[in-house]
C-alpha cells in the first residue's frame, strides 16, 4: 500500500502552513493531474475510486458532484463544522494538512464548475479559522488558488466563515442557512443543495476529510484508492478514539478494519470494556460484542449502527450507564435547534427524565415513556437530528436497561433508608 494514500502522510504538525514542505511531500500532484482533465473526467475518477462522504452519511462523493444541477454557477462548501461529540479528525486534518483540504476543494470546484467556495469552520475552532485564512493567502500567492490557477485558465477562490457553535449546523442545509446569515435551521429536502443551495444556487457540501482524500485519489488514480479497504467502501478512514483507551487520538485505518484492531493500535482499553459508542452521540451504544464489528459504512449499518464520523468512545466498567443516559439526553436537549415540535419538546422531556433518573428521582415508567417519546421523534422530527435520538436511547435501554433499573431501585432504597 502506498503511504501517500493516507491523509496522515501529509500531516505536518510542526509547520502546517509551510507550503513548500507540503509540495515536497507530494502536495498538489492531484490538482495538477486534475487540471489536465475535463470536469467529467475528474468526476469519473472520483466515482471509480468509490469514495464515500466522510461526514457521516457515506454518500458517494462522485454521485453528489455529478448531481449538481446544470445551468447556474454552483458553490462549493467545505463542512468544517465538526460538532459531533468524540470527533476530532477534521481538526486533526485542518491543523496539520490545511493545503490538502484546499487542494481537495480546488479539484472539487473544477469538477463541478464552482468559482467560489466557503469553508465553514466550527465556532469552537477559532485558531483553525485563522490558520485557514493564512493558508488560502499562501496558496493564492503560489498560484494554487485564486485567479487562473497554475495558468490553467481555471479560477477558484475560497472564503473562511466561522459558525456560532451549534451542533445542528453540521447538517448541510442548516449550515447553508447559517452561511446565508439565517438562523441555523435545517431545510426541507428535496430540493437537495445540489439543486438549490446557497442563495438558491446549486451547492456541493463536502466534509473536510472527504475533500482531503480527493487530491490523493487524483494523484494516485482511482484504482489505488479503490483497492484499499472494503470492497464497496474503499479507502482509508480517520477514527477519533477517546474515552477509556490508553492512547486517545486520531488514527487512520483502511475501511473495514475490525474495532478490536483499532483499539489495540491505541494501546487497548484501560480497565474492562463495558460499552462503546461508535459514530458519535447520535450512534448506538454497544456492548463488548461490538469489538468484532468491521468499521465501514455497510458493515456498521448491518450491525444496526452507523459508522458516522468515525468517533469511537470506549467506556470501561467504572461508567454508570444512567449517567451516560443523562449526558446523552442533555446533549440532544441543548443542541436541538427548536425548529420542529417533536424534537424541541421531545429532547426537553428526555433530558428531564434522564436527569431525574441520574439524580435518583426517576420513575420506572420513565423508561417506557422515553421509548414512546423517541418513537414520536423518529416519526415526526423535521431533520435527522431529532430522528437520531432513538439510536443511542434505545441501545442504552436495550443493552443496559437492567443496570439503569437497578440503579434507580438502589437510589430509591438509599433514599428511603436515609429518611
Amino acid at each position: 500500500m502506498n503511504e501517500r494514500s493516507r491523509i496522515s502522510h501529509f500531516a505536518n504538525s510542526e509547520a502546517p502552513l509551510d507550503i513548500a514542505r507540503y509540495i515536497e511531500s507530494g502536495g498538489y500532484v492531484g490538482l495538477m493531474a486534475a487540471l489536465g482533465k475535463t470536469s467529467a473526467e475528474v468526476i469519473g475518477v472520483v466515482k471509480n475510486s468509490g469514495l464515500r462522504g466522510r461526514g457521516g452519511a457515506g454518500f458517494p462523493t462522485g454521485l453528489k458532484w455529478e448531481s449538481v444541477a446544470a445551468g447556474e454557477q454552483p458553490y462549493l462548501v467545505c463542512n468544517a463544522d465538526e460538532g459531533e461529540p468524540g470527533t476530532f479528525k477534521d481538526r486533526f486534518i485542518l491543523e496539520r494538512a490545511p493545503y490538502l483540504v484546499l487542494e481537495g476543494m480546488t479539484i472539487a470546484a473544477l469538477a463541478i464548475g464552482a468559482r467560489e467556495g466557503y469553508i465553514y469552520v466550527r465556532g469552537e475552532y477559532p485558531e483553525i479559522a485563522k490558520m485557514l485564512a493564512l493558508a488560502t493567502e499562501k496558496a493564492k500567492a503560489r498560484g494554487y488558488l485564486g485567479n487562473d490557477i497554475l495558468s490553467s485558465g481555471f479560477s477558484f477562490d475560497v472564503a473562511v466563515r466561522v459558525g456560532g457553535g451549534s451542533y445542528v449546523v453540521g447538517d448541510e442545509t442548516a449550515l447553508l442557512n447559517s452561511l446565508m446569515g439565517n438562523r441555523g435551521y435545517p431545510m426541507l429536502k428535496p430540493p437537495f443543495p445540489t439543486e438549490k443551495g446557497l442563495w438558491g444556487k446549486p451547492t456541493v457540501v463536502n466534509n473536510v476529510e472527504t475533500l482531503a482524500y480527493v487530491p490523493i485519489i487524483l494523484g494516485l488514480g482511482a484504482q489505488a484508492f479503490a483497492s484499499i479497504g472494503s470492497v464497496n467502501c474503499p479507502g482509508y478512514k480517520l477514527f477519533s478514539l477517546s474515552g477509556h483507551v490508553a492512547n486517545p487520538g486520531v488514527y487512520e485505518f483502511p475501511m473495514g478494519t475490525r474495532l478490536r484492531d483499532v483499539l489495540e493500535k491505541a494501546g487497548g482499553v484501560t480497565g474492562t470494556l463495558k460499552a462503546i459508542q461508535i459514530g458519535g452521540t447520535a450512534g448506538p451504544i454497544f456492548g463488548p460484542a461490538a469489538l468484532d464489528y468491521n468499521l465501514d459504512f455497510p458493515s456498521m449499518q448491518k450491525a444496526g449502527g452507523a459508522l458516522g464520523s468515525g468517533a469511537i468512545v470506549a467506556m470501561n466498567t467504572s461508567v454508570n450507564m444512567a449517567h451516560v443516559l443523562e449526558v446523552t439526553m442533555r446533549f440532544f436537549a441543548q443542541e436541538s435547534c427548536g425548529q420542529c415540535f417533536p424534537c424541541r419538546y421531545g429532547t426537553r422531556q428526555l433530558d428531564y427524565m434522564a436527569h431525574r433518573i441520574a439524580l435518583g428521582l426517576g420513575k420506572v415508567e420513565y423508561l417506557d415513556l422515553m421509548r414512546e417519546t423517541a418513537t414520536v421523534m423518529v416519526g415526526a422530527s423535521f431533520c435527522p437530528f431529532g430522528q437520531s435520538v432513538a439510536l443511542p436511547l434505545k441501545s442504552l435501554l436495550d443493552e443496559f436497561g437492567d443496570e439503569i433499573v437497578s440503579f434507580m431501585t438502589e437510589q430509591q432504597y438509599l433514599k428511603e433508608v436515609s429518611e
Partner: protein
Amino acid sequence: MSVSLTVDGNKVTVPDHTSVLEAAAAAHISIPTLCRHEDLVPKGACGMCIVKIGGQTGFKRSCVTEAREGMSVWTSSPEIRDIRRGILELVLAAHPADCLQCIKHGKCELQTLAERFEIRDLHYDRYTRGLPVDQTSLGIVRDMNKCIGCGRCVEMCNETQTVASIFFRGRGADTIVAPTIGKSMGDSVCVNCGQCVVYCPVGALYEREQIDEVWKAIDDPDKIVVAQIAPAVRVAIGEEFGLEPGELCIGKLYSALKGMGVDVVFDTNFSADLTILEEGTELLGRIREGGPFPLITSCSPGWIKFCETFYPELLGNVSSCKSPQQMLGALIKTYYATQREIDPARLVSLSIMPCTAKKFEARRPEMNASGLCDVDFVLTTREIARMFRQAGICFADLDESAPDPLLSGYTGAATIFGASGGVMEAALRTAYELATGKSLARIDFSEVRGMQGVKEATVDMDGLAVKIAVTNGLGNARKILDTISAANKLGKPSYHFVEIMACSGGCIGGGGQPLPNTQAKRARRMEGLYMEDRGLALRKSHENPEVKRIYAEFLGSPGSSLAHKLLHTSYLDRREAASASS
C-alpha cells in the same frame, strides 16, 4: 395541469403543486395542524400533519409534500394517531394549562386539537417556563409561556410586514419569539399592527385590553362616555356573534353600545368624511403649487410609525391630517363639549377600532388638541364584542338604532375607508369635484379596489393625469416607498397621491378584528363595505350635511387655522430606534 391520487382510498384530482394536505382537504379529510395557516408559507414545524405515502419509508409532512400523480396517501393509522397524540402531549406538558383564564379560550388552535385528540391526561410531568409577560407595549402583550413556536408571527412580522420587530431567540426548548436583545415590545420597532396577534394560534400574543377601564368609566355617574366606531368594525363584529363576514351591523352596534351604557354614540365615518375634506384640500393645494409629491395618506397608525422608523425621509410627504379617530376625538372634547355645554373633563372618549395600533396612536403625546387626551380608550372589535357578551347583549338579535346627531352622519365615501383603496377612492371623488367644479360621471374607481397588495392607476382629473398608488400590508408598502424615496432623491416625480394601509386588505384586516382573520374573510368584509357604499344616497364626503355644518359653524373652511389646530398633526423621526435595535 392536474394530478390524481388517492387519499385514504378516496380518489381525488387536484391542480399541480397542490400539497398532500390540501389534496386531503379536497377529499373531505381534515389533517390536523398546529403551525400551518392557509394564508402563510407552510413550514413543517409541528409535525402534526404527517401522513404515510405508499412506497415511501417513514412519514411525510403533508403540508410541505406535493401531491403527485398516482400517489396513495394514508392520513390515519394507529402509528400516526399515536405520534400526533404524542406531539400534542409534549406541547401540552410545556403549556400553562390556564385555558379558563386565557384570552384565546375557545379560539385556541392548541385547545381545539387537544379536544379533538381527547387528551384527557398527560403522561409527561408538566413544567412551566416561568418567563415574564411582556406588558410594555400599548398595543400587544407577549406571553412566551404560551408560545408553541409555530413561527407564524415571525413570518408576519419579518416577511409580510417587514418590520422585523420580533424573531426567534434561543435554541431548542428555550426558543422564544422576542424583540432584539435588550428591547421589549414597547421600545422595539414594533408598529403595533397586530398581525402577529391575528396569526398566533394560541394565547402567546394578544391585544392589550382596556375593558376594565371602560366599564369603570361607564359605571361612573360623573362621566359621559362618548363612543365612535370605525368603518371596518361594522362589517366584522357580526362574526363574533355567528353572523357572516361582511354583514353590515352598524345599526346593531349603535343599539348595543347604548344598551351597555355608553352615553353618546358617534361614528368615525363622520370624521372619515372630514378627513377627505382636509386631505383633499391638502392634495389640491399641492397640485396647485406643484408638490411636494406624492402626498401619502396618514390614517393608519401602524403605517405612520413604520414611516417614522424606516422612512423618516418621507415624513414630509405624509399628509398632516390626523386619522379619523383622532379628528373625532379632538372634536368630541371641543366642538361637541361646547355645543352641549359640557365640561370636556367629564367626557370619556372611547373608540371602537379594528386595530391594535390605534391604542398606541391614542397615547401619542401630541394627541391632545382639546387640552386633554383626545381619545381616552381604544377597544378592538374583539374587546367590544367581549363587553357586549359580558353585558348580556344578544347582539345578533338586536334591533337597529340611529347614532347621536352632530358627529355621526356619513357618506359612502367614508365607509369604504375600511378597505384598502377606500381612502384613495373617497379622496378622488371629492378632489375631482372640488378641483374641476364638475360632477363625476363615474363614481366607482374599481382600479383601486380589492385585496391586491399594490394597486396603481392614473386618473384623469380634467386634463391632469394624476398618478396614484394604493398599497396594503407594510411589505407591499416598502415596494412603493423605495420607488418614491429613490425618485425623491433624484428630484424625479413618482406618484401624486399614495394610500398606505399597514394591514393586508386595509382596516378590515386589522389586528383587532374577529378571529380567525383570514384573507378570505377580509375579502368578504371588504365586499360588505362596498355594498354599504352602493346603497347610500350620499357617496361623496363633501356632500355630508354634518360636515358642511361643522365647517359653517365651527371650523371655517378646510385647512383653516382652527382645522389645523384640531385636525392636523406632526410626526417624529424614529430612525434612531430602528438602528439601535438592528
